[in-house]
């Protein structure tokens, strides 16, 4: 009987915390883009605009209202049924973002996932052969990959695998998922680039985490008791640092997706999220940017919550409250 009011209070606090978090993030982002970003009225009218036309366009864009009013208008699609349309192109935003997300998921997500798994595998291998030649080889490879610009990597791989002067097996640019073969023809290059580009960083972090976990007394005991190195690493070390690894993976995912889509999609003419976000950033198109910002913030809240719940299940005394701590 005593727990109900307490749980209700916690829920209210959690909901309030989430809303406050989203409000602050979106308001700050809106204010920064609004004040420092480009004037979208000029973008829309081009070089033939007159002062009167600029005024008209600004009126349509609510530029004569104050910042707070404009912010409320920019996010009121959340609670109204107003269909969101790009202020520059007039295109509907929701179908565009959904389609972009699907393309980005196909073109970049496999590379990210495979890259993380490969990094994990190589990190285990490096720890298994610590200070021996496989460890040195992996460390050197990671260093080279980390030092190489993504654009250079992309150009190099494209010349080797796609161009007429190279193997010419993959598409140089463009996108098609008409058939599975088409999808592979177009998605393999971005997958490879994404896989290699993040490998070095992830590998270095995972190696450090696993190595640290291996120093624990119970692991030393297991090793001393004669169990095989592989068995101890995979059955004991890896689970011990699984929370840290999952945290790194989950928090890195949106950054990798957005950065990857801005660079890789731009170069390969892939119609993913980057092809929407990049021009929207340049033209200050709030109708596209605000849903992305809000989704981004919401994703981190959800992930933080999920990771926290997991942590709580492993270490019950670590913390009691979840949502309020997220924002306070």
């Amino acid at each position: 009987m005593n727990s109900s009011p307490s749980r209700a209070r916690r829920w209210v606090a959690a909901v309030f915390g989430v809303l406050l978090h989203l409000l602050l993030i979106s308001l700050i982002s809106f204010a920064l883009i609004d004040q420092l970003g480009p004037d979208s009225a000029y973008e829309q009218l081009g070089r033939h605009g007159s002062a009167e036309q600029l005024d008209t366009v600004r009126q349509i864009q609510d530029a004569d209202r104050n910042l707070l009013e404009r912010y409320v208008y920019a996010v009121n699609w959340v609670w109204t049924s107003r269909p969101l349309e790009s202020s520059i192109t007039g295109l509907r935003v929701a179908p565009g973002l959904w389609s972009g997300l699907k393309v980005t998921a196909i073109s970049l997500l496999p590379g990210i996932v495979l890259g993380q798994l490969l990094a994990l595998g190589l990190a285990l291998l490096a720890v298994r052969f610590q200070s021996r030649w496989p460890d040195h080889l992996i460390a050197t490879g990671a260093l080279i990959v980390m030092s190489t610009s993504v654009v250079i990597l992309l150009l190099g791989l494209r010349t080797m695998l796609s161009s007429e002067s190279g193997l010419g097996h993959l598409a140089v640019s463009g996108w098609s998922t008409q058939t599975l073969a088409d999808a592979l023809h177009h998605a393999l290059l971005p997958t490879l680039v994404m896989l290699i580009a993040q490998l070095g960083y992830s590998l270095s972090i995972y190696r450090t985490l696993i190595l640290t976990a291996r120093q624990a007394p119970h692991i030393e005991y297991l090793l001393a008791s004669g169990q095989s190195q592989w068995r101890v690493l995979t059955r004991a070390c890896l689970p011990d640092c699984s929370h840290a690894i999952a945290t790194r993976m989950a928090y890195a995912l949106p950054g990798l997706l957005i950065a990857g889509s801005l660079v890789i999609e731009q170069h390969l003419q892939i119609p993913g999220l980057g092809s929407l976000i990049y021009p929207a950033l340049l033209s200050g198109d709030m109708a596209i940017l605000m849903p992305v910002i809000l989704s981004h913030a919401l994703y981190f809240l959800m992930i933080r919550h999920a990771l926290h719940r997991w942590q709580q299940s492993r270490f019950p005394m670590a913390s009691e409250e979840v949502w309020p701590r997220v924002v306070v």
Partner: protein
Amino acid sequence: MTPGRWCERSFRVLMVILSGVLITSCDSAGDRPEPQNTFTMSLDESPQSLDPARSSSLYDEFILVNVYDTLYRYKYLSRPYALTPNLAEAMPEFSEDGLTLTLRIKQGVRFRDHPVFDQGQGREVTAEDVVYSLLRHFDPATGSSGQWLWQGRIAGLDQWQQDGADYQQPVSGLKALDRYTLQIGLTEPYPQILYSLATGYSAIVPREAVEAGGGLLAGTSIGSGPYHVESFDRTQVTLSRNPTYRSERINLDDEGYQPELHESYGLAALEGRQVPITDHIRIQFSTEPVSRWQSFLKPDETQMIAVPIQMKDQVLRFDNGLLSIDPAFDARYYTRLSIESGFIHFDFNMGNPRIGQHQDPGINAANQQLRCRIRDAVDLDEINRKFYGGLAQVADGVQLPGVFEPDTPASGDQDRPSTALQAMEEIDWPSVRFGASASVQSRQIFELIRSRLMTLGMPAEQFQLELFPTIGALYRAIAEGEIDLVFTAWTLDYPDPENIFQLFYGPNASPGSNSARYRNEAYDQWFEQARVMPDSAARQALYQRMHQQLQDQCVTLASLSRRRLYAWHREVIAFPDRDIVGGTMLRFVALTPESDPDR
């Protein structure tokens, strides 16, 4: 659950999700054209919107003229450019005072089938649709960027806008006399109106599509043009033949065919063919030149490109000053070198009293002298060699072959850059801000000009660079007088000198097209006289005077017209053009029988 199990289960779930995404995102094969029936090309920028009222660049226009009808269009092969009826039955009849034009549109032309129409069947295009499509630009809710074409020109249109843009209210200068007859009343003679009726802005849209809302027109097409949009995003557009397009056959003589110019491209084979010839067209938008080039070299990707200037050495040879195509390249591809319909120019900020116009005649003269020295010091030939591969055409002042060329070369000796590079003594150098769109090339051109000005004695810190991430940001800076020398380019909206000289017409001062913010009473009067005159010697004389005045007062540092080198695969029969004819050429593109299984 143990962490190990959790990881294992998560991995499985992730793999299932990834496979699901991959499989569900694969479209059914029947929805898309087969590659063999498709002509593919690339452009270096993407269109912003497919709504004619929202279009603002030649990339938008390139698509629009294919999916919508305009009353007139440019002849495919005629140079200088010439108009021909498109949706209109014939060229219009002008009243004696030149203030009224009457034209009839073709009967039986239909919008393509779409759910916005009753029972999903496209209805007939009428003169009312033309009226509605033009009125839309004056409806503030549209936010049109094409209003300038008819503002102050069509009687009653501006007033209609001020009265609230009520579509039920008639406009005195824009009437549908009957289902197929349109009458346009002008406030003053406007010979360029025919050109305006060939632009993408004048594309004819059905009212139902606009009223359906939801930005429908921005991403698709509901027009009566030869193609319709199959899919569109920021990276590519796919067009498919409009099955309800009217039956029209190609008459090469009418299109301006000249055997000596066109025969080698195989264009004679187009005679009598029905347009559009190719079923599907895919246009990729790629800002990255290496990507465009590598894609073009593959036999199964891009079939036509404008060769990026960085790749010119792989295509062109300069032997003893003579330009030729590399024989190996020539054997594999068609090529065509064509001058752009526009030019690059560097405008001084004439609104800044430190460098531009000044009420005090003495200061005004000193400023003019300073501008002329700066202009003369900058070697456009050097810019051409270093940044445009020596392919551009450098001219004295604003001019363009086939549109406007001065009778006599501008005053001054031919070796101005070298004679100008004598240090100017006792000058209080003003701070000059050089503005351009952000790019490596803009920065390099700035450095080149700065080195020249330093030779004149200008302190390096007095010449500053301002780069802008977007064209809109640059325009705003110009309008607010933040830039003293702006590096910009102009592509003609239509091939008429009026479209060149309006760049310096006072009322067009930025935020309009007059980036120099130049205001001169005599110039404005000449311009106002010339723009209402039909093409004649008297009109030409006025433009000559305007040209001379711009040169004498050193308003702009101009001009440099780039040449575009088009290359296309041998299986494609085409005569590429990106500027004035633009996308209109797509309906005439044919694939040779070997590459077209349907023939």
